[in-house]
């Protein structure tokens, strides 16, 4: 029992959680009263999910040994297409709830198309994920721009805005969604047979193939699932921002990679835990909000985040070295 606890603490996730506590404590000290206010905690709970879901989406792709640079543009393209339908239905006087449902279904459908595209190019044609998704990023951005002509899609029904701003029992709906997705992705990645295959493919796709795993199909499906997650993040963003535009959340892209790796995901695939990514997302959120409330220059906040990334990985390196 005792050794179990000790193991937990020295595990990557344990160290990360300690860092989270430390950062949280530090921010509380920096802006006494403000950071720890109920309002701020709730506000962070609204902000966290969209980024968190994108990070999880990025992470499962990284575990297969890939990367998805078209992540945020998948989210925005799907929210633009779905948003347009939703706004049109609602403008034509259609039932709000129905419009929302139709909108969400189309968002997820559109994202699935994006996922199918990426998945096909990566898995079946065999293009390096970085390049395939770089091309897809440009493509999706182009399609979005072509649809919006540079403007934003807005005029969503009131019901849709509730998704991003409503609460159930005092808990923000985005947070509830996020928790469901954490559990879902955890079951999927760490407990399901497909998840296990993903880890093995991430380590060595040839061995997986030689073991009768349908490697191409699983990689394809992973991009698909990751895109659906992106669409869910898109729903949250569109709802929270009351509009849809191709550039929303573009700053999340590299942050999502950073959060995955900070959370212990091996960038070359095969390793990574949902818990790690979630804690890393929380760390980044706390630093971002905390320093913003404290009033630090935004650029220095970036410096701090970059520094944290390097420091945490250095700690990982040193502990690993010591355990050897």
């Amino acid at each position: 029992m005792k050794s179990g606890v000790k193991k937990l603490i020295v595990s990557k996730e344990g160290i990360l959680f300690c860092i989270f506590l430390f950062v949280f404590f530090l921010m509380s000290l920096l802006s006494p009263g403000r950071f720890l206010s109920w309002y701020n905690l709730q506000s962070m709970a609204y902000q966290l999910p969209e980024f968190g879901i994108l990070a999880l989406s990025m992470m499962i792709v990284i575990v297969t040994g890939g990367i998805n640079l078209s992540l945020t543009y998948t989210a925005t393209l799907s929210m633009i297409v779905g948003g347009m339908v939703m706004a049109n239905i609602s403008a034509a006087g259609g039932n709000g709830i129905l419009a929302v449902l139709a909108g969400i279904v189309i968002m997820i459908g559109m994202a699935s198309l994006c996922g199918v595209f990426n998945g096909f190019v990566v898995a079946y044609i065999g293009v390096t994920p970085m390049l395939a998704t770089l091309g897809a990023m440009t493509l999706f951005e182009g399609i979005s721009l072509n649809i919006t002509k540079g403007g934003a899609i807005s005029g969503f029904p009131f019901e849709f805005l509730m998704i991003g701003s409503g609460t159930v029992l005092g808990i923000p709906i985005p947070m509830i969604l996020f928790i469901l997705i954490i559990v879902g992705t955890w079951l999927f990645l760490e407990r399901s047979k497909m998840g296990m295959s993903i880890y093995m493919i991430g380590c060595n796709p040839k061995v997986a193939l030689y073991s009768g795993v349908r490697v191409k199909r699983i990689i394809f499906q992973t991009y698909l699932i990751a895109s659906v997650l992106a669409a869910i993040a898109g729903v949250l963003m569109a709802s929270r921002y009351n509009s849809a535009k191709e550039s929303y959340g573009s700053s999340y892209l590299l942050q999502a990679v950073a959060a995955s790796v900070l959370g212990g995901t091996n960038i070359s695939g095969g390793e990574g835990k949902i818990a790690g990514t979630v804690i890393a997302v929380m760390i980044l959120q706390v630093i971002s909000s905390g320093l913003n409330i404290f009033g630090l220059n935004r650029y220095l906040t970036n410096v701090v985040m970059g520094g944290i990334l390097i420091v945490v990985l250095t700690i990982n390196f040193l502990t690993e070295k010591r355990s050897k």
Partner: protein
Amino acid sequence: MGRTLVEIEKISKIFPGVKALQNVGFNINTGEIHALIGENGAGKSTLIKILSGVYQPEAGGKITMNGKVLEELTPLESLRNGIVVIYQDFSLFPNLSVMENIALGHSVEKNDTLVSWKAMEAIAADALDQLGLILDFHVPLGELSVAKQQLVAIARALANNAKLLILDEPTSSLSKGEVKKLFEIMLSLKKRGIALLFISHKLDELFAVSDRFTVLRDGQYIGTYSEDELDDDQLISLMVGRKIEYTIYPKNKKEEPLLEIQNFSKKGNFQDINFTLHKGEILGLTGLVGAGRTEVAQAIFGLNPVDEGTMLLDGAPLVINTPDEAVKAGIAYVPENRLQEGLVLRKSIEDNISLSVLDSISANNGLVDLTLKRSLTEKWMDQLGIRPNNPQMLASKLSGGNQQRVVISKWLATEPRVLIVDEPTNGIDIGAKSEIHQLLRELAASGLGILVISSELPEILAIADRVAVMRHGRIITQMFCEGLNQEDIMSKAL
């Protein structure tokens, strides 16, 4: 015999939970071929890694070369002192040309700033000459077959002017002819005063060239013996602690066809392959390296779909285009290259064994039953005697033989009807080998059809009921093994 070249004293190496080496000490002389033998996991590879500076021994150990103590050995230091190793995984560069793989080390060792492509070419040509090999210099190494890659590794060692050449199971992917050539080279190197440390699990090879034998057992030094002091049986009992020999299993004639291969052809791979595998039968498929045996096996398994030909399972036509279809149909394939094709090295034994049976250990909802996964792993680890007995151990940390057992377990766990094993006992010690033979025989007895691809004729003769011999992509002959001897097969394969 020459003078002492290397003195190894009190070398120990402890990995978490494993004492890989304990106080090992012996000498290697110039101009001798010194065999290092022991069961899988005895510590042979570990000792080599210490000699080559990859691992540091525990305090107290000492290595002396030509009277000079080698302290804090690094790979470069070791190389500079003339210790050259050919590892089990070759340690080559798939993206570089054959020439560079052979000759680049020279420039590094000489601490050159510039490379001279001319000089490299000369060095590579010379080394390949010594091996009597003809290869295109400029082809990226990754495009060569495993066998050729290994020859390149040997050529590289020659080019490095080794004083002590260490060969870790160098013959495992070589054909008889190539082994013979290698031995000739080893003997000529020996004549030039070079010391060779030679690791192999094949006793006939060991006796063919070795002057002295050093035996390790469970990380401990058992003794060093000269060739004339020992015979096979004594050597085995020193290694294993008991007596073992190849059991020649009784041959059967089976009637009931299981897998029928008809007119399999694939351009550039093989032509007109016809054979029938019966229920309860072991069919040996042999021939020289490069004869196309692996290609046939991979065609059956869906890795290398044929241009034409049909396959019948239980008399019903079966079309297989991907491995998962093969697995579903009950066909299993143990590949010849376990490091690249057989094992996910970064994952545990448990993850590896369960990889091919994820479907059967998971519930309808797609979640894996972890207790079932563990019990299945333990069952097979037990059955095949995988050491150390820790399902969480990473596959990369296992010794070669135990790695092979993990691969076999992975496939047995799928409860196949047809089992194809490609060089199943490659790198496996004699004790384990006979266990695997017995296992294969038992599986056959339970009704499986087994196709054994092996270059080792005694192995084929020991376990196979029938043998098919391949040459240049065609099956030349099929014979019953009853009453056959090695020469009968060899004469067909050449």
